[in-house]
């Protein structure tokens, strides 16, 4: 008879539970920091993508295409191992003093996600009728100011559900940071697998946590959709 017995208590108490808890915290830190950074970066890229100044628009376009069309795992490896050759030595030394694994993961996740966020924001902005921009320009606002005060506040309201979805993807994608040694949830589950051979229990617990995160975010989006965007129960216009 094989020694495999399903015993969830192994990962609910003691050392392994601590590992999983640490993993959860790292996952949440990693995703929330990257989320905030990716939002602001994505916002800027979206605006750059829509300016009338051609070089800037092209740059934004290339940025979007490149980061959307390469796998995250390759980007992670690139930032972690490849940056050594590219960055000047003082910056490398500085980064290596700290937790560079985490920093590289944040950088990779931020760039990757910002490209998707930029597209969502852009489609949010294009959903706002063009006349609004024309009206605000003719009432004396500059392009950036009318973006800031008139267009964006409306666009952001409608892009919140897709943005939260991106955050959800980001949280799931953060699991790939394990390949460069970031101690997030999947990494810890894998550690438990290889140290205690309790693979089933470890993955069960980790999966359960991921599902809880995902479902609570999904419920949030559904609630926002119903209560804020369509309070009267009408469909989107």
């Amino acid at each position, binding site marked *: 008879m094989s020694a495999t017995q399903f015993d969830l208590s192994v990962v609910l108490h003691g050392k392994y539970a601590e590992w999983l808890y640490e993993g959860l915290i790292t996952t949440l830190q990693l995703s929330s920091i990257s989320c905030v950074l990716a939002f602001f970066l994505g916002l800027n890229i979206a605006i750059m993508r829509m300016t009338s100044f051609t070089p800037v628009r092209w740059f934004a376009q290339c940025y979007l*295409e*490149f980061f*959307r*069309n*390469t*796998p*995250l*795992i*390759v*980007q992670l*490896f*690139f930032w972690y*191992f*490849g*940056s*050594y*050759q*590219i960055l000047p030595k003082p910056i490398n030394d500085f980064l290596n003093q700290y937790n560079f694994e985490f920093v590289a993961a944040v950088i990779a996740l931020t760039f990757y996600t910002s490209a998707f966020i930029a597209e969502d924001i852009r489609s949010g902005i294009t959903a706002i009728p063009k006349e609004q921009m024309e009206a605000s320009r003719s009432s004396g606002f500059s392009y950036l100011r009318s973006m800031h005060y008139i267009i964006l506040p409306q666009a952001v309201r409608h892009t919140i559900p897709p943005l939260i979805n991106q955050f959800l993807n980001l949280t*799931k*994608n953060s*699991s*790939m940071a*394990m*390949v460069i040694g970031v101690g997030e949830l*999947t990494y810890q*589950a894998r550690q438990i697998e290889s140290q205690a051979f309790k*693979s*089933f229990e470890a*993955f069960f617990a*980790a*999966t359960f946590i*991921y*599902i809880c995160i*995902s*479902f609570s975010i*999904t419920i949030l989006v559904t609630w926002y959709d119903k209560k804020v965007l369509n309070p009267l129960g009408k469909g989107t216009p």
Partner: protein
Amino acid sequence: MESIFDFSVISDNFLQLLIGRYPHGPLGGLALTLILAFISVILSIFGGLILGLLCISRNKFISLPIIAIVNIVRAMPLLMVIFWMFFILPSITGGKIPENTTVICALSIFTSCYISQIVIAGIASIPRGQTEASISTGLTYWQSMRYIILPQGLRNMIPSFVNQFVSLIKDTSLGYIVGVSEITQVAMQINNRTQIHSAEIFIFLAFIYFIICFIFTSLSRWLEKSLSWKKVI
């Protein structure tokens, strides 16, 4: 001036990046990446259609469990789905399953669940009146799906399908983590051996993926334009 990059590491190992250890060992590298992606795409088109149709089935005993499973899979990171496949598949078949098959199954199931959502949305985009009309002409529910609704719905879905396949191609890179010798794994192996050319290797790797994915992204955009044009006519 000396360049900071030395791409000779790519040309020296080009064959290994393309086909791995073949013919002295298993096929790997870019060829394996493309094979994995191709098989998974085909499987997930069918899987997605079936799951999508089951989700909107009027029989609650069929639709609810399927909806639950689809939502659970969509809530999980792909990496976890792959790890689970290593448990589930051997217990179903009772024997050994090669990693390639395991990864193909994981990718297909994962992508099917996402495609099923596209299918549901595509079917919902066809006015209900059409189903009612075709049922009243004597077709059964499934017949009207098969001959009336799906052919129209599929046309709207195609661009989203292609987008999903771009994700799938990118996702084959996760095979690296479970030891499938696709191009990312081969690149990492070369990186481990040569040690000082990481930037070149990963830039090249990103470039390869970019070309493949960009072709499909452009295809999806073109389809979106040309299909919407047809709809207007």
